[in-house]
């Protein structure tokens, strides 16, 4: 499913990009995109586990310590090795993404890297804390003499990894919503609102925009950056206050918890079915892992609402595309109620935004944005609904899980579906992780592809920051094969760790 979506995204992005013209930098950027997309997804796959799994590991450890229960402690210890290997592979693939940015898209740093400086430098401090505590946590496990010190070291690690995620997402959120640039983007894309307080040198940024349009960052470099541009940014901390970031962070962390918890549930459920004599023990673990996933699945409905509102406010074209409002606009009763409390609210369509393009200082860029959004709508709508339906199903699973704690609801479930609720929990554990992965993959596809062709929305286009070195099919194939190998080997290592090192009651 995920591969299918990726393939679809890659091919459509390439298709829509080709329609932009025969600029050799555009051709190069198109050639580089598949490996970048796959690399980010592979990194994301392991990061999902590295960020989300600690919540479950620490829940097990907390219960083990609180109740002096070896079962939970053993489960936490076993699961922490998966956390460790995900962290290692996440670091490796993080390097891949980092080099992708520096090497394949080097213009990003030249043109706009200063906006990423504060988040990335602060992330260094968080990463340092992570590294220190991952060593302490993984190398000081002692289930015979469990200690709260060990648990607290895990909590510190969890906080550090979440701060790290917040800071990395700050950079990504800035790419979607360049917060702190005031009215600059609205001059290029007239439908955009003012993006926070104005902490930039507007004249210098306008100059930079003109320079980039004349031939990408290579032209900018040749013209000597500092003489042409001047100081751009007065407050490097501004990307950290982005409202788009708050929603993104909440939504992403909850998604990682869902995936980590339900993937673990699937492995426990597998053992539950295979080992009849251990069913009580397995279900005890499953109730916790499924429960953590269920709580996150309920909470994500609220963070999803928050996310949807900021997308509507700051990336309205993306909203129009994935809600398939259409060229002439129309009603969307659910969104009308959610956003305005009015099911008859009329949402503007692409034509309205095309009409606004004439007010832009760069009408071509504005028109291009609307056309890219229209192209995105043809498939983005389906991908968006994959996310929504997966989320709704997980929400239903979660409500059913909570029925476990009510005798009346449990018996009602049995009467309606003719199977015990416990059986449903066990078997739905195999479906839930796929739903979580599908939702997360689709969500990120919508988020990232929805701002195409912009790298920094409304300011910097993807072809402007590509390396002038030719991205050959051989290089692309090599990098993609390495990325796929890491995905396969890393996943195999995780499965191996869980299966081979299976704890026995």
């Amino acid at each position: 499913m995920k591969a299918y979506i990726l393939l679809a995204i890659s091919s459509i992005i390439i298709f829509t990009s080709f329609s932009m013209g025969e600029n050799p930098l555009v051709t190069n950027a198109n050639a580089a995109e598949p490996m970048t997309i796959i690399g980010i997804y592979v990194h994301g796959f392991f990061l999902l586990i590295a960020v989300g799994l600690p919540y479950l590991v620490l829940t097990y450890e907390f219960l083990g310590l609180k109740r002096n229960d070896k079962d939970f402690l053993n489960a936490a210890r076993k699961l922490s090795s998966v956390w460790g290997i995900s962290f290692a592979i996440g670091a490796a693939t993080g390097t891949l993404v980092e080099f992708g940015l520096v090497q394949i898209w080097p213009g990003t740093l030249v043109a706009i890297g200063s906006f990423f400086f504060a988040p990335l430098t602060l992330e260094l401090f968080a990463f340092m804390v992570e590294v220190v505590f991952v060593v302490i946590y993984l190398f000081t496990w002692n289930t015979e003499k469990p200690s709260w010190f060990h648990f607290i070291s895990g909590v510190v690690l969890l906080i550090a990894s979440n701060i790290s995620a917040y800071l990395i997402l700050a950079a990504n959120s800035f790419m979607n919503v360049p917060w702190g640039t005031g009215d600059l983007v609205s001059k290029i894309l007239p439908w955009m609102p003012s993006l926070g307080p104005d902490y930039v040198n507007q004249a210098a940024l306008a100059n930079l925009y003109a320079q980039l349009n004349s031939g990408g960052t290579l032209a900018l470099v040749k013209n000597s950056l500092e003489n042409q541009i001047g100081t751009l940014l007065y407050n490097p901390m501004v990307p950290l206050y982005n409202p788009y970031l708050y929603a993104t962070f909440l939504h992403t962390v909850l998604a990682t918890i869902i995936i980590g918890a339900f993937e673990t549930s699937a492995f426990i459920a597998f053992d539950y079915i295979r080992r009849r004599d251990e069913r009580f023990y397995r279900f005890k673990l499953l109730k916790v892992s499924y429960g953590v996933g269920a709580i996150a699945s309920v909470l994500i409905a609220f963070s999803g609402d928050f996310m949807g509102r900021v997308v509507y406010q700051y990336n309205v074209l993306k909203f129009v595309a994935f809600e398939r409002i259409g060229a002439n606009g129309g009603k969307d009763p659910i969104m009308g109620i959610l956003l305005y409390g009015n099911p008859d609210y009329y949402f503007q369509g692409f034509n309205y935004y095309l009409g606004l393009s004439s007010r832009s200082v760069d009408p071509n860029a504005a028109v291009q944005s609307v056309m890219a959004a229209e192209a995105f709508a043809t498939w983005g709508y389906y991908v968006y609904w994959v996310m929504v339906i997966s989320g709704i199903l997980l929400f239903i699973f979660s409500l059913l899980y909570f029925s476990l704690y009510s005798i009346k609801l449990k018996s009602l479930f049995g009467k309606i579906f003719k199977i015990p609720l416990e059986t449903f929990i066990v078997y739905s554990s195999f479906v839930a992780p796929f739903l979580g992965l599908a939702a997360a993959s689709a969500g990120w596809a919508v988020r990232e592809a929805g701002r195409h062709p912009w790298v920094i929305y409304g300011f910097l286009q993807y072809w402007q920051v590509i390396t002038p070195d030719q991205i050959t099919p051989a290089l692309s194939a090599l990098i993609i094969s390495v990325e796929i190998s890491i995905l396969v080997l890393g996943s195999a290592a995780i499965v191996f760790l869980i299966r081979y090192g299976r704890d026995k009651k």
Partner: protein
Amino acid sequence: MNDVFNAFILVGYATIAHLFLVNLILGISIIIPILEYIQIRNKDSNLKVSIKSLFKFMVISDLFAGVWATWLTVFLGGFWPLLTYYATTVLFIPITLSLIGILIALPSIGIYWYTWDKVNDRIHLSIGIMMAVGTIMVPVGFNMIFSFIDNPYGMNQALNGNLFAVFDNPLYPDFTLHRIFGAVTMASVSLLGIYSYLHHKYGGVKYTAMVRILSFIALPSILIESFLGFIYAWELNLYSPYIASEIFGPLSMNGSLNSLFFLFSIFIAVISINALLLIFIIFRNCSGKGSGLPSILLAIFAMLGIPLGEFINDYSRYPYFIITGNSGVNASVFLNNIMEISDIWVISSIMVSILVLFVYVWLVYRVNVKGIQIDQ
């Protein structure tokens, strides 16, 4: 302090800290498969315990090296975006090679650790060899950057599409070998010092094999490394005379006495003491007498060599960044002037890095010396 100096010091500092750890990792990851091969052949359980301990040390070093690598990338991207742009554009192929090396090395380290005693010995050894190959690929690519900033060979060809032209840089082959053997020398000599001390202190056969094998690696390695060092010095005189005159002072073709030459003299003294101590300790070990303090001194001097050599090599280019014969391109040309680099970034980074160093030493002590319980 001015912006250029601030940014230069931060990048230089991160480079030296990173390279110190990276050399340890490179050396150890080459040594570990050799040790494991001998351990499997001899079925030596004591050696296996030592290899596991050594591997843990390498993992901790690798995690911290990763931190420094990220620091380095952020500082390069943040302070020197133009330099980063040129380097990644011109040195696209070597950097890709390194990147692939990292992508092979890091997962194999994780897999190597978690498959110990869980898969067949030969398969485990193969994973170790894969780890070593990946780790070697990293300096093979990245050393092109250092060769390039000393002698920017192939720049025009690369900008015109011939990305392989940089491999013809005459400084590159010897410099890369010099770095790889330098890493093996540093790791093997410092480990020999540590294990000789442990052998001397605790006696018995626990560390005998380790000491013997490390001696066989360290001695030829230091000889090859010294030979490569002389060739590198000669090549610097030919292709990067500015660097040569700064480092070698009156010993270079057109240099004069300067402060870096003084440091270089100390560096040579450190290397010489290392060689003498190494020979002394090997003789003592062969005669069964062992040695205490000299072993510790050997470990310390072996670890001093790399950061000292790196500092001399890196600082010799200031105020230039890229050297072109007897002159260079001023560092200020590459500086990010679209953002102010305040002293607070320098001070906070150095403070944090000192903290990192303490934590690193503490972790190495806790995990390796105190031998706390391990999750395996």
